[in-house]
């Protein structure tokens, strides 16, 4: 990309490491023993995972009556968590696919871990529809299959819930394939570095005999672009379809055409919040500050500012249409959102999603790692409450006051909410321990470009 006169591409890798140094630095966490911080996080995450296993077992044994659901509120924490985790995944695809198409170099240090995050987040999300079925062993009823025990009866293809099945399984498959394909050259590097027999065998099998042939690289790059081109509309479609689970109903608060873009922006916002949290943890615990620089964090903060502002604008639009549209049910719903029994959720959401990202207008805040860490967690708290507000507040007071009710979470609701974070972090921590979590080959390309730029300017920034 040609930059205007006097503007230089920022340095995305600090100093001027040699290619050998890059390999050594990135492979280091996988070859040595991880630090205390990693063990502490891992212990906590496994605790959460055990909690999830216990709670899910209890839930499946007893039935979903152990959740706080009732006749008015049939969807609550379960679907809130589902939408939340699917949303988290979206940032990974945005970084790996959309930023690839826009040729943003800053994605190279963070795309691998962001894609891994996507995969783990979609796995967490997929758990909730399964658990919500009550009889998860009959999960295959949601797929069109033949012959089935109902005679030639098929799923209802007009229902967004069935669209979801296709969207999410496609999204998971394509994300996984994209991620794995990106890993192959690095797995080959690990294979050639491996000393132990088992490591050699595992990396050797997984790297598919990769040897860095340029004839393969040439095709590989084209395929990466094609996958990015496919994943970009795919990721937009996934959260649009999730939003249609709500938007195609007639419920006040759900029945609105703004939902698809609003959900996609929210998904990217929450996902970037999660990427930020994870990367700050990773760079501190694995000493990768040179590769995941403050400039990367700053760029992500800018994306958070943009998407956070889009989400805030959507909140305002919803309130405006409720007032301007003149539908009494719609108007009541939004009054109830801001002043009803769940008002704390609404105001928490406004605080975290509309106000917090406004800090990122200032460079001072965008480059303050401690502040970014705290605000990235606030982003995710806010986005979880956004989904809670949309789902529970809409359901608990719909049309007839005789059908109104309240939802109170039970121990199992909260236990599963917490436990899924355990599952997610266990997977992520294992990933940063055993898989090259920065794309070495892509970083090597960026480092070589930087060397060229340095030589052209005659200066040495290192």
């Amino acid at each position, binding site marked *: 990309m040609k930059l205007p006169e006097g503007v230089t591409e920022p340095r995305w890798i600090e100093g001027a490491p040699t*290619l*050998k140094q890059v*390999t050594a630095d990135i492979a280091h966490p996988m070859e040595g023993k991880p630090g205390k911080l990693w063990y502490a996080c891992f212990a906590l995450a496994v605790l959460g995972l055990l909690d999830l296993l216990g709670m899910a077992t209890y839930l499946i044994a007893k039935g979903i009556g152990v959740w706080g659901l009732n006749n008015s509120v049939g969807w609550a924490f379960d679907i809130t968590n589902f939408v939340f985790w699917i949303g988290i995944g979206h940032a990974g695809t945005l970084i790996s696919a959309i930023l690839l198409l826009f040729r943003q170099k800053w994605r190279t240090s963070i795309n691998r871990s962001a894609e891994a995050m996507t995969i783990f987040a979609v796995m967490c999300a997929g758990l909730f529809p399964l658990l919500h079925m009550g009889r998860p062993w009959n999960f295959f009823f949601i797929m*069109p299959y033949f012959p089935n025990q109902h005679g*030639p*009866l*098929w799923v*209802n*293809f*007009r229902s*967004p819930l*069935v*669209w979801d099945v*296709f*969207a999410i399984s*496609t999204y998971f*498959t*394509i994300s996984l*394939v*994209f991620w794995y*394909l990106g890993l*192959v*050259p690095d797995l080959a*590097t690990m*294979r*050639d570095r491996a000393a132990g027999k088992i490591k050699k065998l595992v990396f050797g*099998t*997984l*790297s*598919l*005999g*990769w*040897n*860095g*042939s*340029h*004839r*393969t*690289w*040439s*095709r*590989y*790059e*084209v*395929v990466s672009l*094609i*996958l990015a081109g*496919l*994943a970009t*509309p*795919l990721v937009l*479609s996934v959260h649009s*379809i999730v939003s*249609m689970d709500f938007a195609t109903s007639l419920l006040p608060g759900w029945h609105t055409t703004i939902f698809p873009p609003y959900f996609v922006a929210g998904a990217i916002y929450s996902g970037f919040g999660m990427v930020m949290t994870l990367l700050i943890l990773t760079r501190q615990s694995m000493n990768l500050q040179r590769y995941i620089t403050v400039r990367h964090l700053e760029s992500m903060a800018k994306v958070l500012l943009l998407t956070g502002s889009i989400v805030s604008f959507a909140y305002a639009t919803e309130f405006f249409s409720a007032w301007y549209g003149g539908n009494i049910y719609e108007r009541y719903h939004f009054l109830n959102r801001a002043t009803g029994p769940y008002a704390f959720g609404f105001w928490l959401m406004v605080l975290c999603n509309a106000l917090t990202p406004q800090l990122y207008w200032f460079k001072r805040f965008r480059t303050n790692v401690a502040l970014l860490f705290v605000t990235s967690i606030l982003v995710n708290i806010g986005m979880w409450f956004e989904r809670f507000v949309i789902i529970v507040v809409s359901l608990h007071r719909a049309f007839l006051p005789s059908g109104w009710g309240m939802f109170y979470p039970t121990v199992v609701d909260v236990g599963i909410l917490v436990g899924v974070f355990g599952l997610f972090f266990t997977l992520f921590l294992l990933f940063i321990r055993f898989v090259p979590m920065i794309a*070495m*080959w*892509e970083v*090597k*390309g960026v480092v*070589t470009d930087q060397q060229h730029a340095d030589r052209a300017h005659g200066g040495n920034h290192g």
Partner: protein
Amino acid sequence: MANILVATFPQVDDLLRAVRKARSEMFRVYDVFTPFPVHGLDEAMGIRRTRLPKVTLLAGLTGLAAALTLQFYTNVLDWPLNVGGKPDNSTLAFIPISFELTVLFGGLATVAALLLRARLYPGKQVWLPDPGVTDDVFALVLRKPSDDESHQRAVALLKGCGAASVVESEARL
């Protein structure tokens, strides 16, 4: 019997120069091995554009056709079911699934075609011209010229372009 010449380069620019020069002097470039995709090598090596995008298109269209057929067959022909008074053939409602299957088929087929074409599969015996090519070494592999005179010329050319080492080797081409 040795049938290739392997030249290793520590610098990417030297490698590019060597590839261009070797081709202009009519030596046959077997392949180049690099730790990351080097831009400009396609032109230097004279590689034609891959036909893989056509696989994507064909597979995507297959996915689209499969999705539309499945939904139309089940909802209109096999077991029409009145849900909320919507028409049996609710084509608009079939679009999301058709899109998803287009992407799924297209993506999977493209990757499968890449692996087939590049002959990458688990358990493949890996052949590296130099142990460092997945780390920091750029290796240019020429087919070994048949006569001694051009062999000497090739070695001199590679050395002149900054090759760190030039060795004869054997490979199943």
